[in-house]
């Protein structure tokens, strides 16, 4: 018998699971790694690039090799560490990165990947013709990879929970338990987090979170903890989430995160049967699994000698202890000092032999397991994430936690209470097969190559070789890499530097990050006051930010375009009504209301007569147009300011800033009323007659204000036109607006009109040349670019006036608003070019067909556009394969004089 096996006796193996289609049995409490080893399965994976057979190296979350895909359908989880997965009855796992099977893998047999995949392989393919990269990419994608993400939706629920405590203890080992006990005794509220299922002790009065990983430590004592309620791939209890992400705020944090054992670097150090020394002890003590019968131990410290005792006690044979030092502790096992492993040979599930340098000579040992210990790396990830410094300990050849800017302390092994080691410079006769980063298949020769090619900074080396960039983030490999780099560079390890530790500590399921905020709950839906009225008409809804607005009201099997065209034509010929409730609305009141508005608005406001309104726009401080809308003087010291739907929240903050920071001396009150009032615009040549009949009131002229009642509901009527036709905006309190809509809808339909949606609104405003913030006003356009400069208040004093003085904003070649016409549809977003291959001179911001008549019209931003009327350009959208010949015109295509909405 050779290879891993279960130590005879003990509990019955009652759980059934499948690995690569074969059914095995496991004991309750087994990890998948332990269960596979207990069943004699030593080879569990193929490696990332070279498809080399790999086994189990560790017993904890640092495992780089034994990655599996677990679960079926939408519950599939790839790249799960077999050491961090407790077996449950019915577990299904498969090995990864092999084809057609783990035993017979074409990628490995051909060995064809190797020459392509050395350090920097993909950077190198960027040089030379693009076609070569296309060829390589296909090949590399097939050859190199991890598990595949599932394509089916995740059926599980996830949740977030918030908590706070005086002390958060991370790690339920001896040091963590001791810290928690002490804190509880001092009367502190304690949360204790442990990655494994069980703690090594229990404490009264502590909130224990087992199977929970402290995944990130952020600012001000804020920690994110990922709790698994079920194992990967397992079906949760009905009504329960699969995982829970805790957001914990702690006054102080104690890190008892332990240390990770480091492997040694030699040829074939990645074979099944090479295992970390403490992992060997873990499998014996925790799982009654003996990872090998005849064991060689290679070490540079005293700790591995305890492994020899454990192996012997479990019935295994310790063939030899290879100690790289001149002497080790007293032991009855055969010890070879000044001895290091050189290479291994292996069989499928275990080693066959170990070749070692002993003194000046070499020796071969028959062994099925090689337990290695290259020293211990304190787990400083969380300390480092929280901004803590790291100190170098020469005796440990490791970084330990130094000063922290937060109330974060480390205890136990995490603080450097680990066995000292001898610093050894490995002589590597076969660097091509001496692995540094097992998960990403980075060898010593890759590091040498990168160094030879001039990569010196450890951060560059990391990116060039992909060292430490796999799902394990180099937990087992970083120190070996730094040691190798330092020896090549002839510097000390702290001089070689260290890459940054970033969250999460172990891979996190995206579902856990999303919590309950998935699917329809990804964003809150904001419903307009008249939602029910629209829903009755079965419209196509369009999301607009968080709002949902009717896009069109198709009749029968009408298409969106046909419906919108019918609706828009009704506005041009008879009448239409549209819901404009989502417009931002601000009541600006007080003796200084006009003075305040003249700070915010770049246009004149103070001279506005009571009962009148006008178009206005607001600038950012840099002079760019921020938003536009209308301002109305409702009474002597009372104004109504409207602005765009999408900019409502931004405008609220902007007005607050202007008031409280820039002009706190002004006596003015600003109240956001976006949701308070529902708004309905009635537009079309018949709108005045319809409204006069409904209200019994004479309607005001363009930009006038009226107060009236419709269906018994008090309404504010503003004579403003967005469509280019005579139009009125009618505002009523949201909860009263239903009957107002009903009355307007009945009257409009009776006049031959229709309700219209956003699509028709777009047709109408594009034809009229009205800009939209977000399309034409894209945050890079000045009033001049949008032909609004004549409206700027000469006296200045408004936000953005200073910014506008920058000389670059007066340049003649700036992108300016133009109109574009064509006989064929103009693709929205298309670039404007003189001909194919010519430089880009601008782009199409909004496009539509003419509402009445034929041909297409569009608005666009074109370099020096105002001086280019009559030019013929190509509006080209290569990504959609669409283009149109366009003629540059003024940005208005309908009723240029504006007679249709004035008298």
């Amino acid at each position, binding site marked *: 018998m050779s290879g891993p096996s279960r130590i005879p006796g003990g509990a019955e193996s009652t759980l059934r699971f499948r690995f690569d289609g074969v059914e095995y049995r496991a004991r309750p409490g087994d990890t998948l790694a332990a269960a596979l080893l207990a069943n004699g399965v030593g080879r569990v994976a193929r490696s990332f690039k070279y498809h080399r057979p790999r086994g189990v190296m560790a017993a904890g979350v640092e495992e780089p090799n034994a990655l599996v895909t677990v679960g079926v359908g939408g519950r599939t989880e790839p790249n799960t560490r077999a050491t961090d997965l407790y077996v449950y009855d019915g577990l299904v796992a498969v090995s990864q990165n092999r084809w057609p099977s783990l035993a017979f893998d074409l990628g490995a047999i051909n060995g064809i990947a190797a020459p392509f995949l050395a350090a920097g392989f993909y950077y190198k393919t960027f040089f030379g013709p693009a076609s070569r990269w296309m060829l390589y990419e296909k090949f590399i994608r097939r050859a190199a990879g991890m598990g595949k993400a599932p394509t089916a939706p995740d059926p599980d629920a996830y949740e977030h929970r918030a908590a706070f405590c005086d002390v958060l203890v991370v790690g339920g080992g001896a040091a963590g338990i001791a810290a928690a006990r002490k804190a509880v005794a001092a009367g502190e509220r304690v949360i204790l987090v442990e990655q494994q299922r069980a703690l090594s002790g229990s404490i009264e009065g502590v909130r224990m979170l087992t199977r929970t990983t402290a995944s990130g430590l952020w600012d*001000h004592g804020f920690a994110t903890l990922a709790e698994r309620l079920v194992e990967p791939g397992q079906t949760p209890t009905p009504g329960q989430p699969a995982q829970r992400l805790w957001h914990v705020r702690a006054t102080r944090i104690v890190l008892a995160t332990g240390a990770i054992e480091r492997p040694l670097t030699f040829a074939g150090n990645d074979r099944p049967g090479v295992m970390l020394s403490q992992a060997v002890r873990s499998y014996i003590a925790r799982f009654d699994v003996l990872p090998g019968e005849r064991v060689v131990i290679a070490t540079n410290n005293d700790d591995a000698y305890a492994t020899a005792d454990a192996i012997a006690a479990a019935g295994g044979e310790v063939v030899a202890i290879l100690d790289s030092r001149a002497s080790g502790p007293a032991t009855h096992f055969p010890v070879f000092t000044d001895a290091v492993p050189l290479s291994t040979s292996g069989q499928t599930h275990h080693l066959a032999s170990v070749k070692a340098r002993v003194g000046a000579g070499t020796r071969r040992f028959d062994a099925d397991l090689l337990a290695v210990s290259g020293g211990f790396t304190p787990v400083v990830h969380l300390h480092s994430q929280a901004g803590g410094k790291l100190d170098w300990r020469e005796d440990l050849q490791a970084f330990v936690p130094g000063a922290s800017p937060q109330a974060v302390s480390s205890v136990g092994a995490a603080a450097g209470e680990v066995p000292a080691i001898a610093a050894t410079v490995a002589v590597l006769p076969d660097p091509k097969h001496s692995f540094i980063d097992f998960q990403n298949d980075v060898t010593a020769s890759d590091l040498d190559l990168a160094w030879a090619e001039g990569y010196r900074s450890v951060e560059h080396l990391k990116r060039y070789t992909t060292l430490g960039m796999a799902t394990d983030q180099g937990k087992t490999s970083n120190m070996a890499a730094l040691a190798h780099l330092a020896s090549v560079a002839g510097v000390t390890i702290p001089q070689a530097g260290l890459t940054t530790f970033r969250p999460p500590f172990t891979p996190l399921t995206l579902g856990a990050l999303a919590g309950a905020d998935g699917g329809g709950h990804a964003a809150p839906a904001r419903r307009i006051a008249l939602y029910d009225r629209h829903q009755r008409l079965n419209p196509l809804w369009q999301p607009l930010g968080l709002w949902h607005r009717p896009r069109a009201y198709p009749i029968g099997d009408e298409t969106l375009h046909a419906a919108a065209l019918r609706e828009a034509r009704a506005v041009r010929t008879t009448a239409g009504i549209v819901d404009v409730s989502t417009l931002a609305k601000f009541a600006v009141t007080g003796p200084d209301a006009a003075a305040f508005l003249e700070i915010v608005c770049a246009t004149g406001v103070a001279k506005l007569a009571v009962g009148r309104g006008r178009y206005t726009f607001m600038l950012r*401080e840099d002079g760019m147009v921020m938003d536009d809308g209308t301002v109305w003087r409702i009474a002597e010291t009372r104004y109504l300011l409207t602005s765009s739907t999408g900019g409502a929240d931004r405008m609220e903050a902007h007005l607050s800033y202007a008031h409280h920071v820039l002009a706190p001396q002004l006596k003015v009150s600003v109240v956001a009323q976006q949701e308070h009032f529902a708004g309905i615009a009635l537009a079309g040549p018949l709108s005045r007659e319809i409204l006069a009949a409904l209200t019994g009131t004479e309607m005001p002229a363009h930009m006038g204000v009226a107060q009236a009642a419709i269906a018994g509901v008090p309404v504010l009527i503003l004579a403003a036109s967005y469509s280019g036709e005579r139009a009125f905006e009618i505002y009523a309190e949201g909860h009263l607006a239903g009957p107002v809509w009903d009355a307007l809808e009945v009257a409009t339909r009776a006049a031959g009109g229709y309700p219209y949606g956003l699509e028709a609104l777009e047709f109408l405003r594009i034809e009229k040349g009205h800009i939209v913030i977000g399309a034409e006003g894209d945050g890079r356009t000045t009033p001049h670019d949008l032909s609004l400069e004549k409206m700027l208040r000469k006296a200045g004093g408004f*936000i953005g006036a200073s*910014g506008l003085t*920058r000389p670059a904003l007066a340049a003649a070649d700036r992108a300016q608003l133009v109109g574009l016409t064509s006989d064929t549809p103009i693709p929205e977003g298309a670039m404007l070019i003189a001909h194919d291959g010519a430089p880009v001179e601008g782009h199409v911001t909004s496009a539509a067909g003419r509402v009445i008549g034929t041909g297409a019209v569009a608005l666009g931003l074109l370099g020096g556009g105002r001086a280019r009327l009559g030019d013929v350009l190509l509006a080209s959208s290569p990504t959609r394969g669409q283009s149109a010949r366009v003629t540059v015109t003024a940005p208005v295509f309908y009723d240029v004089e504006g007679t249709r909405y004035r008298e």
Partner: protein
Amino acid sequence: MMQIDCPYCGPRAQVEFAYERTLDSIVTLDMPAEEAVSRLYARANPRGLDDELWRHSFGCRQWLVLRRHRVSHAIVSITEYAP
């Protein structure tokens, strides 16, 4: 995520707040154009303490001044904004 001790609401998570700008980049309305542009585009960006204007947007909506260390994120003081 930082914890900000709002003088009106008490300690709250950073997500409730919106950063506005540093105090020295406030452009007052009476400022000469040249100085205004310089305040907008030439920031001190100190590696250390700075005074910042924040707003408790999802709380009391008041404007606050945080004296905050830009490396350690330590907040030295929080006061209501007074121009």
